[in-house]
């Protein structure tokens, strides 16, 4: 094969690709903007918009696995020896024209294309967070002497949680395991604490560098009250509403901050019956996630 022939075999597919890209930009309003900023951040320039053009231009038509295969100058697969992953048969027989790294990067871009065409929503990855929340409950049996009406003393709680979001698209759903302790008594053995499992469901709107969200939270668990040097087992449940935002820290990490309304309830034995005490309070939460 002459050098002119080899050049023609390379130029024709490239021209087709560039032409398709131009059509795609013209049809879609142009630009490399992805619907999902999170995905855009992760993929950066590795996602090639031109490759998505056929799907955008005619979504009812199946997208070929390899756009190079549609080049009319390429022989059908049965006409010759099996080609390499992305290399025309004739090119495979010749000494490599590019370093291996350059050649291998090209298929990666093509492989990412179905991800974009399949995900029209926001976000797609599960996330894991380590969170810290602070809120105020009441200390049963203690009085706020300054209130003058027998109001219970405030009891701030600090809590750590491991939050797993199986999906985080326009809708976000999370499962949270939370351990909270009476502020200032961590690991002292003399304070109140609780362990709770909570679920959250909310909506969010991913943006370029941050993702605002609103979510409802509900869960239940066990609360240990420490009263008069005794452990008093009680029940605990809570529900509330959080509003906040996730801010990207790096390619695979983010920081979350939210404030919200929380309605913790403590159920316990009172004489021979079961009674509950609740408060309506604000809470503050920060988390770091991947």
């Amino acid at each position, binding site marked *: 094969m002459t050098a002119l022939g080899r050049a023609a075999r390379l130029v024709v597919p490239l021209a087709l690709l560039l032409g398709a890209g131009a059509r795609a930009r013209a049809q879609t309003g142009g630009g490399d903007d992805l619907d999902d900023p999170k995905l855009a951040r992760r993929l950066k320039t590795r996602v090639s918009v031109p490759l998505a053009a056929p799907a955008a231009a005619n979504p009812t038509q199946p997208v070929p696995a390899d756009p190079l295969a549609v080049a009319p100058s390429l022989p059908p697969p049965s006409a010759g020896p099996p080609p390499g992953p992305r290399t025309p048969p004739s090119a495979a027989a010749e000494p490599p024209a590019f370093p291996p790294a350059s050649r291998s990067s090209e298929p990666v871009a093509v492989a990412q294309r179905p991800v974009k065409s399949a995900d029209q929503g926001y976000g797609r990855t599960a996330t894991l967070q380590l969170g810290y929340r602070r809120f105020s409950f009441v200390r049963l049996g203690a009085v706020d002497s300054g209130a003058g009406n*027998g109001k219970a003393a405030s009891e701030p709680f600090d809590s750590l949680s491991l939050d797993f979001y199986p999906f985080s698209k326009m809708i976000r759903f999370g499962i949270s395991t939370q351990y909270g302790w009476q502020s200032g008594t961590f690991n002292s053995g003399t304070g109140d604490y609780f362990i709770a499992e909570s679920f959250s469901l909310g909506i969010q709107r991913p943006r370029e560098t941050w993702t605002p969200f609103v979510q409802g939270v509900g869960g239940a668990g066990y609360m240990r009250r420490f009263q008069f040097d*005794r452990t008093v087992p009680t029940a605990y449940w809570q529900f509330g509403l959080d509003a906040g935002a996730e801010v990207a820290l790096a390619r695979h990490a983010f920081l979350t901050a939210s404030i919200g309304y929380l309605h913790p*309830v403590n159920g316990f*034995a009172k004489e021979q019956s079961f009674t509950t005490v609740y408060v309506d309070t604000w809470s503050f939460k920060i988390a770091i996630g991947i």
Partner: protein
Amino acid sequence: MVALALLAASSVAPALSCGDINGGAGGFPGTVVYESPAKDFHFHLLEPPWIPIKLPTGEIFFLVPPEGMISITAAQETDAAYTLHIALQNADATSAYQAHIISVWDLSKKKTFMTPGGDTGVEINWQEGPKVYHRDAYVNGSTAGTSYQLRFTAKTPLDDNALIEQMVLSFEPRAFSASRVGR
């Protein structure tokens, strides 16, 4: 779907039970009111862990069983983690306090207080022996020249015990129906 069902359940169940008592309101939330048989006083306590015990003499006192026990008899009073005896004094709070002073009292620890019900009193913390601590509070009675002595005993110091503080401050020398703090 399972996860959504669990979420719905966890959201609905608490909504059905948002709680009986608003902890942010007054009236010593979460506590039990004890009113004397003669209805001459009442106060608030957590029951459990406090248990009222009636002696053959008719006196009623209160105790907290030690950790690991859910009940205790009067004969085991020395084993109790906390005890409370209430006794009517035929003198106002200050006079009754002075009448009970003993040499081991550190009088610099004397404190005066006013309850949310507007009743005044005086108290002191002191140590009788190893692992025997007291907190004596004297609250003026509703009748002039009378007061009530609340003697707490515990195996740990009582100075900064917020739960004991609540029991003292909830004490009112009148029937619960006449409470100035309310329910």
